[in-house]
Every structure is written in structure tokens, then in C-alpha cells.
């Protein structure tokens, strides 16, 4: 054996490559127990794929305008989606004005998409995007400008209402959560304790109770000019709830930043705001990205709770869609469709979260 070091690229120094067959043998069929588990699971999966596939695709009815064709079919009745899609997507919104609600949805999606682009992450650019987006959305949904008919918020519904509530809660809640997180770390005891009290108070109440109070009890307590409309109050209350949870996520991210970071920044002469915005918050966001994304996902799903104060979000509208005798048997199809809508949004959200995490990890290495 010679003692000269082998070059790194020498095949003899690399681990042996595995063929696919040996991979399968090693991972799926190593021993009787594992082999039988593999076989059972393969059969179960095949059966599941077959039965779901034949229900959803092979035996299904796709494009019949009435429910009659579905009665003889053994598979899914997707016609219900076709016939009732407008109710699911737009709820109680006036039928002839549905195009406005659709455009408003597009506006929301565009705003969210733009907000996710790192190149636009300056206070100025984001404020422009958000203000413009909010103005366009409101003009379209509410009307009263450019000759559009006024549609009061209690007739808003469906997917556009769900998106509107989610995006508003995030846009109001995120800045609030940052303020709360910073206040909770403040050197001034009064501010620190007040923030802690507020967070603990709001967290100790169920979202349901908070929304209920905002919709029905607050009007008795506030003068009329401060009440706003019901939807506005519900969104503000929901945002506060969101902000209190998100503030704790951010605080966790702040607390694990070594104290030397702040000291170095202070020694360089940075003031509190420069230190907070350039050193503390960017690192805090990095640190708490997974729980923050989690909070967004939960908030998206929690929007369905607004039904209890009388709003028709996408889930409530879906229930209305099969609420007529003709389509009543086909609620599973409707729920699958709504589930698919939720999935598209939430899956995009988590993929975006994964992208952000990767982007930030690259920075660190």
C-alpha cells in the first residue's frame, strides 16, 4: 500500500453507486416483515387509486346542466360544480356583477404575488402595491365609482370574501404583530407590560368569541362614527388575534439573536430604528419563518369561522350551493371542489415558505 494521497476524483475514493434494483431490495424488501408490509401497502394504494379514480373520472358526469343525468351515474357528479360554481365563488354577490368580484379576486392574487417578490420588499414599494391593490379591490367590490353599482359588504361572499378577509388580516396584522413584538421587548416597563397584557388577553380568548364580540357587542359600546361596518370590525378583530400570535412567533425569533448583534450595531453608532430594521428584524424573520408561515396557513383556514357572524365565505357559499333539492345529494363533490381551492392556496403558501427558507439558508452558508 502506498502512502500517496489519492485525488478526490478517483472513483476508488467515492462511495459505490447503487442500482435502482438494489435500492428497492435494500429499502422495500429486506426481510419477510418489510416485504409483506410493502406488498400490503402496494395493494391498498392500487385499490385506493382505482376506486377514487373510477368515482372521480371514469364513472363521473361532467357537463350536464341538470341533476337528472347524475341520478343514474355511479361516479361523481361534477355537473354540480358547473351549475353552482358561481354561488361557490361569489356567494350572495349580485349575479350580473359577478365579473367585478372575479376581477377583485384577480387583484388580490396579483397583490399577494407582488408582495412575495423580494425585489419589492421596501416600505415604499410595498405600500404602493398594497394601497393600489386595496383601492382597486374596493372600487370593484363595493362600487359607487366609475358608474359601478354599490354592493354593500353584507352581500360580499364566496372566494372573493375569503381572499379579502385573509389578505386584509395579513396586511393589517403583520405590521401590528411587529409593533407588538417590539413593544413586548421594550426597555420601558409600561409599554412592555401593556403589550404582554394585550397579547395574553387576546390569546386567552377563542377566535370565535372575539369575532362575535366585534360583530355584535362592539356596536353597543362604540359611538356610531367609530363603528364602521360589520365586515370592517370583524377584520380588525381578526387582525388583532392574528397579530398577537404572530408577535409571539417574531419575539421567539428575536430572543435567539445573540446579544452581541445589538452590541456591535450600537458600537457602530446605529440608532434604535436602524438597529431594529437592519439587524434585529431581518434575523428574527429568518429565525421564525416556519412558525410564521404556519400562522398564515392557519389564518387562511380560520377565515371560514366568519360564517357564524353572518358572512358567506367560500365554505358557507359551498353549503348554499348544494342547499337546493336538485343538487342536495352531491355535497361530496362540492366539498372536494372547495377543498381543492383551499389546497391550491395553502399549498402555494407553503411552497413559497419553502422557497424563502432556501433563499435565506443560501445567505447564511
Amino acid at each position, binding site marked *: 500500500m502506498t502512502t500517496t494521497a489519492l485525488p478526490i476524483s478517483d472513483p476508488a475514493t467515492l462511495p459505490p453507486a447503487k442500482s435502482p434494483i438494489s435500492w428497492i431490495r435494500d429499502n422495500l424488501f429486506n426481510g419477510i416483515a418489510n416485504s409483506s408490509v410493502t406488498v400490503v401497502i402496494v395493494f391498498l394504494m392500487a385499490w385506493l387509486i382505482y376506486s377514487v379514480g373510477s368515482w372521480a373520472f371514469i364513472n363521473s358526469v361532467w357537463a350536464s346542466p341538470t341533476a337528472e343525468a347524475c341520478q343514474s351515474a355511479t361516479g361523481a357528479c361534477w355537473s354540480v360544480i358547473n351549475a353552482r360554481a358561481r354561488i361557490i365563488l361569489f356567494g350572495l354577490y349580485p349575479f350580473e356583477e359577478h365579473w367585478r368580484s372575479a376581477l377583485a379576486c384577480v387583484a388580490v392574487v396579483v397583490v399577494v404575488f407582488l408582495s412575495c417578490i423580494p425585489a419589492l420588499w421596501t416600505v415604499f414599494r410595498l405600500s404602493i402595491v398594497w394601497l393600489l391593490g386595496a383601492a382597486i379591490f374596493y372600487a370593484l367590490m363595493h362600487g359607487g365609482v366609475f358608474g359601478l353599482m354599490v354592493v354593500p359588504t353584507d352581500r360580499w361572499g364566496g372566494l372573493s370574501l375569503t381572499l379579502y378577509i385573509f389578505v386584509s388580516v395579513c396586511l393589517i396584522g403583520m405590521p401590528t404583530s411587529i409593533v407588538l413584538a417590539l413593544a413586548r421587548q421594550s426597555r420601558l416597563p409600561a409599554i412592555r407590560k401593556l403589550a404582554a397584557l394585550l397579547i395574553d388577553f387576546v390569546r386567552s380568548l377563542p377566535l370565535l368569541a372575539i369575532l362575535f364580540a366585534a360583530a355584535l357587542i362592539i356596536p353597543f359600546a362604540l359611538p356610531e362614527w367609530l363603528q364602521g361596518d360589520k365586515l370592517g370590525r370583524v377584520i380588525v378583530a381578526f387582525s388583532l388575534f392574528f397579530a398577537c400570535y404572530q408577535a409571539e412567533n417574531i419575539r421567539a425569533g428575536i430572543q435567539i439573536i445573540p446579544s*452581541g*448583534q445589538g452590541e*456591535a450595531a450600537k458600537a*457602530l*453608532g*446605529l440608532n434604535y430604528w436602524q438597529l431594529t430594521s*437592519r439587524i434585529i428584524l431581518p*434575523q428574527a424573520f429568518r429565525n421564525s419563518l416556519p412558525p410564521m408561515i404556519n400562522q398564515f396557513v392557519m389564518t387562511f383556514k380560520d377565515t371560514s369561522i366568519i360564517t357564524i357572524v353572518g358572512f358567506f365565505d367560500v365554505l358557507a357559499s359551498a353549503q348554499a350551493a348544494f342547499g337546493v333539492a336538485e343538487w342536495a345529494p352531491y355535497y361530496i363533490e362540492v366539498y372536494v371542489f372547495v377543498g381543492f381551492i383551499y389546497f391550491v392556496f395553502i399549498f402555494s403558501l407553503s411552497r413559497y415558505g419553502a422557497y424563502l427558507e432556501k433563499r435565506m439558508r443560501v445567505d*447564511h452558508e
Partner: protein
Amino acid sequence: MNNETAAISLSKVNKWYGEFHVLKDIDLSVSKGEKIVVCGPSGSGKSTMIRCINRLEEHQRGTIAVFGTELDDNVKNIDDIRREVGMVFQHFNLFPHMTVLENCTLAPMLVRKLSEAEATKIAMRVLEKVCIPDQALKYPGQLSGGQQQRVAIARSLCMNPAVMLFDEPTSALDPEMISEVLDVMVSLAEEGMTMICVTHEMGFARKVADRVIFMDRGEIIEQAPPLEFFENPQNDRTKLFLSQILAH
């Protein structure tokens, strides 16, 4: 030496952590261009003392002045002093989410209000001086400890400080990286920078210090030029300390 010519002057500075008296009547005057090495056993208050000079710690009694500006509760004075006083830490404390270059240009742009182009020019010149211009676009996590500490020195120098404070700059480094950091500090000293270094690198002290200060239990026990300090220490505690650190 009076207060007008002193770069830094501490007089009768006292500080307590709760009941614990960390600094006891510290008197110290550092003139412009002077290099001071502070040594002493751990817990003796060396770091606390230099951290009081740029108000990372607050002293409770006595006065501290930097170029005639007194450190009090006036935020403007604190800002003025921090702008003139650079500091290098034991654990580098580089900003991990910024590149080396961004670490160096951040404060000049935010605090000195330089344009990005000017700040970059200065940063590249300083990085050249600490011999790592080729690492400018890397992140601190990609560098070795010695390189990180040299970036930390460069980051401070970009603010063009009049005084540099070093808080055990080589204590967290692997042995083979200590000299590359000390070399940078020596060349800085040769350029006439006013420096206060808390360090146990006695070779460095002999080479560049104008004065070596020995602290123990919150007091300055002894101060003398290096030759005198090492060859002929007066106080028993100094002798004990020197015998402990020079023995190995």
C-alpha cells in the same frame, strides 16, 4: 495631561451589577495615539471598563469623556462618541445576514450618511488593508474565525474611528489564526491609532503597548510601560498573575 488633550479620560468611575461592585474608582487617561493593553484575571472588570467607554455598559458614578465629550444620559453625546469609537469583540459579532461588504458599508451609509459608492470604495480599501478583499461578497459564515475577526476590524475602521477598543479579540480563535489578527492590530498601532486592548497576548503587549494596565477585582492595580511591567512588577497580585500566564 489635561482633559483637552486626552482622547479618553475616566475619573473615579464606579459601577455595580446589583450588589456587586465591578468597577472601583477607575482613573485612566489615554492620550491621542497611545496604545494601552489591559490585562487581569477573568472577572476583574477589564471588559466592563472598556464597554463603559462607548456606553454598552452604563457607569453609575464618576465621569467618562471621549475627546472632551462627556458620557451622560444625553443621547446625542452617546451617538457622537460611538461614531468616534470603534469596537472589536471576542465573538466578532458580524451580521450573519449580510455579506462582508454589506457589513462594512452599513454603518458608514446609515450613520455617516455616505453614498453607497463612497462607502463601498472605503470598505474595499479597508478590506485590502486587512488582506481579505477577495472575500467581500461572501457571508461571514463562510469565513474562518481569523478572517471573520479581520472583517470585524475592517467594519469598525470603515467608520474612520479616532479610537479603537478591542475586547479580547483573539480569545475565541484557533491558535493558528491568532497571528493574522494580531498582525492587523500591530499595523493599525503603527499607523498611530489610539487603542485600548483587553488581551492576554503578552507578546503583542510587549511589541506595541505604550502602557500595560493590570486590573483585579474592579481596580487598576498597576500600570507601567511594558518593559517595566513585565520585568519588574511592583504589586504581589501582578506578580502572581504574570507568573500564572507566563509560566506555560
